């Protein structure tokens, strides 16, 4: 009997990778999934933090997809290695700070590494849910061979949803999969995918609007660039990029910014960082938790931050609001400030 062939699939949690797996499973290939966590992924935790998303099911889409497909999913932490992809993308950025082409090359390259280091598992090839022309920069006919070549995957990289528009790959040549049963999807029209999903009886799937991560988001990208400018260094830690997903960010001075929670869920989340960052909250009125990223140079900075925080609490119309400032290794101070009026906050403070 012929050996059972195996593929590893890049699973983003969206519909395309889900369909790619189903197409290959239909051909009798055993599939396992792999998902990479860069720190920028749009995931359940952003819902978990904010109050108004409480009713939404807090699920990890990649895990959920894997369960629907009946495949194992390996989630890999690539936070450290990803820094080089984001900070030095050879192929540049997309519309925002998204280095999509380099990111794809990196992820397929990591899958190649996985196949090699798990050789006892006998994976024969790699599949992705890429579709030619779907994304403006990274999913073009021209970029498909670049990804295959620069990732080191070459012809063991198969894209079942658009394979018919691409040269034959090893699994097709060897007859492990039948090219005739693969697809020729292209362009931004998602109707063929939706139709195929129906055919497979899949009707609950995530449809990420911009892309698979926060780097495609304009506001998020501008906060990231602001962070680098303020620190005079293009670098980041996981805490930095997590905090960029939470709260309002206001920068009254180049040397510090105030991160103000937008609801109770975010306040609770920011509370967890009080041992690492200076924090402020009102003791006289209900109000949000706030963190300071950067440094205060003088008392005026402290007062500015406190009056910003007072502005977002229930004491916003009060004459005086008491604010407690806690420094991670220097105890607490109590301040009494007048809240800033909304019109007194310059628009350019909002990062």
């Amino acid at each position, binding site marked *: 009997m012929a050996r059972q062939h195996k593929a590893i699939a890049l699973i983003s949690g969206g519909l395309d990778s889900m369909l790619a797996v189903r197409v290959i499973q239909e051909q009798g290939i055993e599939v396992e999934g792999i998902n990479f966590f860069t720190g920028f992924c749009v995931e359940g935790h952003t819902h*978990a933090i904010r109050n108004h998303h409480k009713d939404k099911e807090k699920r990890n889409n990649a895990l959920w997809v894997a369960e629907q497909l009946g495949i194992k999913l390996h*989630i*890999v932490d690539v936070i450290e290695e990803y820094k080089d992809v984001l900070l030095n993308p050879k192929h540049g950025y997309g519309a925002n700070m998204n280095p999509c082409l380099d990111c794809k090359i990196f992820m397929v390259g990591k899958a190649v590494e996985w196949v090699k280091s798990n050789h006892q598992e006998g994976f024969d090839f790699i599949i992705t849910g890429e579709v030619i022309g779907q994304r403006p920069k990274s999913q073009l006919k021209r970029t498909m061979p670049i990804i295959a070549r620069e990732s080191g995957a070459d012809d063991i990289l198969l894209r079942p949803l658009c394979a018919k528009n691409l040269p034959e790959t090893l699994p097709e040549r060897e007859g492990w999969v039948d090219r005739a049963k693969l697809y020729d999807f292209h362009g931004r029209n998602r109707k063929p995918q939706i139709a195929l999903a129906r055919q497979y009886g899949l009707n609950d799937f995530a449809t990420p609007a911009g892309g698979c991560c926060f780097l495609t988001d304009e506001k998020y990208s501008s906060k990231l660039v602001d962070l680098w400018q303020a620190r005079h260094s293009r670098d980041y830690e996981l805490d930095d990029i997590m905090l960029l997903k939470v709260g309002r960010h206001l920068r009254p001075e180049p040397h510090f910014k105030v991160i103000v929670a937008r609801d109770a869920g975010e306040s609770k989340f920011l509370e967890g960082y009080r041992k690492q960052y200076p924090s402020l909250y009102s003791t006289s009125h209900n109000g949000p938790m706030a963190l300071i990223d950067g440094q205060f140079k003088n008392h005026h900075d402290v007062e500015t931050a406190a009056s910003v925080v007072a502005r977002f609490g229930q004491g916003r119309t009060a004459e005086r609001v008491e604010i407690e400032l806690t420094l991670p290794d220097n105890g607490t101070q109590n301040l009494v400030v007048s809240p800033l009026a909304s019109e007194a906050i310059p628009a350019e403070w909002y990062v």
Partner: protein
Amino acid sequence: MSDHQLDCQRLLCPLPVIRTQNKVKELAVGDTLCVVCTDPGTKNDIPAWARIHGHSLVSIEDKDDLIYIVVRVGA
């Protein structure tokens, strides 16, 4: 068979899942692992991860703002 603990407090999903996955690789079939979390998302994600990998969920308990998820390593 032995019992193990893993501290995932303050980590957001999917990090607790990744840590659980990596820890379970070091354990033997039948061992239990108690993962201590704070992200409510773990209550869905760790059981989902366990199901797809053939491990079983022993219990989920909320206590003093912490979530304790116990899984038993499958074959």
